[in-house]
């Protein structure tokens, strides 16, 4: 079986071209990489054409798979748990985690004339399905707050970056790029918490005459990650993630969580697709911390007093005393006469209190961090933050505009396949059928190849 089509490429050669287009910073760089690394001269426009075509085909395949999965689920009684996918591996993971977040991509009108017509930003939703290994324990393995969260300059830096992210204007490219870099640096993998806890543990250890840390390295270890991304909105992303989770056997995991920031759309997805399967909802601790810091600084009469409040509240939240923090914030709201049902303007000095109070009230059931740590579940969305950064490496950049929606959707799909660790990228090309018919342009391509063949040294 030759599996050829109009493009005059063997399936393996096609895979190489799409890999170059999906991995390098641009199609142009991909073309240069192919020439340098594979001695293959392929124009950037061809790399682009092949990459986006593969993206569209992958997306069609994914849509069909997801729809078939949900169709099958819809025939089951509502009270029944989701059926395991026939494709799910036999070994259910110890811990399964689904995380979801958004990113932004610059786009242009699809059918406009040559060049960039109507440049605009589009929000894309990305999610990952991760198999983890960790130990559950009776005792909280990390009772003490990681030192990083009590390190004033570090917290200031982290919070200002998160605030810039929330308030950044869509055209503020520089801010976004800086933020992505910094978030990546700060939140890369579980290293942030892990390192902070390790540092804290080391500090304790050095003070300890026995020289042994009371903290074992019990943070969850990532075994395998698959991911999805789409422009079609949070619900479409959640729908795909649900099929993905079932396919990866996550629904059968002994312990499982859905981690996200406080955005309502994340929790609608959890409610609709994951709650019934027993996924524990977890609000990212770092996002919560940013609200705590802002509120504390707004309330404190001096910066030192604000920092003291931050330390006190962060410690309380880390140790599972969220209700206590909520009560003190409610008391503050009363003291400052904050209306419960009317949003204050952004310039109002009481706004941080209102925002913090709303955030904690809405997420109170998702901030039981000692329980999550005992279950060996992650308490931050660092896996997702670093994944968004990996998407951005390819899809974002100055003067980079994708056709809205097809071009953007295609590159996100290719990128997701390349970032998934289940070999789906290679599997796609191994299964991709050829075409029984040819287009006219084939002849022209064949002539080009013929000339190349004739002039080969």
């Amino acid at each position, binding site marked *: 079986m030759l599996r050829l*089509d109009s493009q005059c*490429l*063997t399936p393996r050669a096609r895979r*190489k071209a799409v890999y170059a287009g999906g991995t390098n910073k641009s199609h142009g760089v991909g073309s240069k990489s192919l020439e340098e690394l*594979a001695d293959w001269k392929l124009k950037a426009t061809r790399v682009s054409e092949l990459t986006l075509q593969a993206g569209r085909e992958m997306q069609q395949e994914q849509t069909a798979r997801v729809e078939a999965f949900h169709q099958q689920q819809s025939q089951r009684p509502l009270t029944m748990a989701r059926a395991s996918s026939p494709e799910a591996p036999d070994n259910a993971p110890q811990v399964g985690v689904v995380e979801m977040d958004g990113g932004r991509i610059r786009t242009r009108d699809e059918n406009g004339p040559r060049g960039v017509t109507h440049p605009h930003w589009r929000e894309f939703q990305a999610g990952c399905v991760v198999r983890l290994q960790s130990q559950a324990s009776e005792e909280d393995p990390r009772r003490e707050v990681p030192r990083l969260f009590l390190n004033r300059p570090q917290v200031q830096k982290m919070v200002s970056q998160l605030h810039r992210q929330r308030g950044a204007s869509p055209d503020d490219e520089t801010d976004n790029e800086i933020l992505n870099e910094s978030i990546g640096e700060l939140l890369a993998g579980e290293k942030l918490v892990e390192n902070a806890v390790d540092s804290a543990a080391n500090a304790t250890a050095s003070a300890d005459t026995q020289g042994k840390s009371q903290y074992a390295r019990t943070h969850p270890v990532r075994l395998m990650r698959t991911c999805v991304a789409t422009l079609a909105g949070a619900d479409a992303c959640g729908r795909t993630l649900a099929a993905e989770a079932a396919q990866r056997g996550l629904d059968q995991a002994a312990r499982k969580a859905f981690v996200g920031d406080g955005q309502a759309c994340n929790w609608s997805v959890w409610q609709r697709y994951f709650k019934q399967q027993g996924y524990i909802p977890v609000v990212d601790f770092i996002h919560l911390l940013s609200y705590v810091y802002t509120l504390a600084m707004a309330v404190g009469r001096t910066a030192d007093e604000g920092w003291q409040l931050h330390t006190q509240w962060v410690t309380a939240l880390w140790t599972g005393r969220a209700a206590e923090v909520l009560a003190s914030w409610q008391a503050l709201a009363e003291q400052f006469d904050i209306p419960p049902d009317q949003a204050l303007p952004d310039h109002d000095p009481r706004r941080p209190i209102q925002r913090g109070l709303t955030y904690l009230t809405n997420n109170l059931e998702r901030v039981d961090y000692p329980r999550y740590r005992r279950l060996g579940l992650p308490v931050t969305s660092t896996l997702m933050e670093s994944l968004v950064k990996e998407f951005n490496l390819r899809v974002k950049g100055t003067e980079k505009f994708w056709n809205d929606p097809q071009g953007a959707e295609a590159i996100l799909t290719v990128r997701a396949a390349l970032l998934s660790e289940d070999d789906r990228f290679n599997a796609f090309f191994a299964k991709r059928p*050829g075409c*029984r*018919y040819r287009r006219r342009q084939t002849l022209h391509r064949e002539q080009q190849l013929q000339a190349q063949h004739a002039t080969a040294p």
Partner: protein
Amino acid sequence: MAIKEELAAKLARQLAETFSEEVYGSDGPELDCDIDEIEDLAVLAARAAFDAVIARALLLQNQKLPDKLPCPKCQSRCRVQFQERMVQGRMGPAKIQEPVCHCSACDRDFFPSAGNVAAG
């Protein structure tokens, strides 16, 4: 597959050694011959071998095809012919003989070795 790979590697090695001796003579290259030059020659040989292996293997495979194959649209049986085609592979272009049928009922060519129908 492992045995086939082992045999392929052994044969290719023998052929490559012969090739090297043919090109450089039994004494080997001169002392001033640069490694880049030798490497370029090796790559050229590998590319030529790539083309030749694919072309020959497909030529032999084609002989196993039946004389006639059904048209994917109308199912009428059409005579299998072969046409030369250039394709780009991992290591460069390769010239192959591709089976092609012409359905006179549909007045259309079709390529039976393409596999299932996909966007082309």
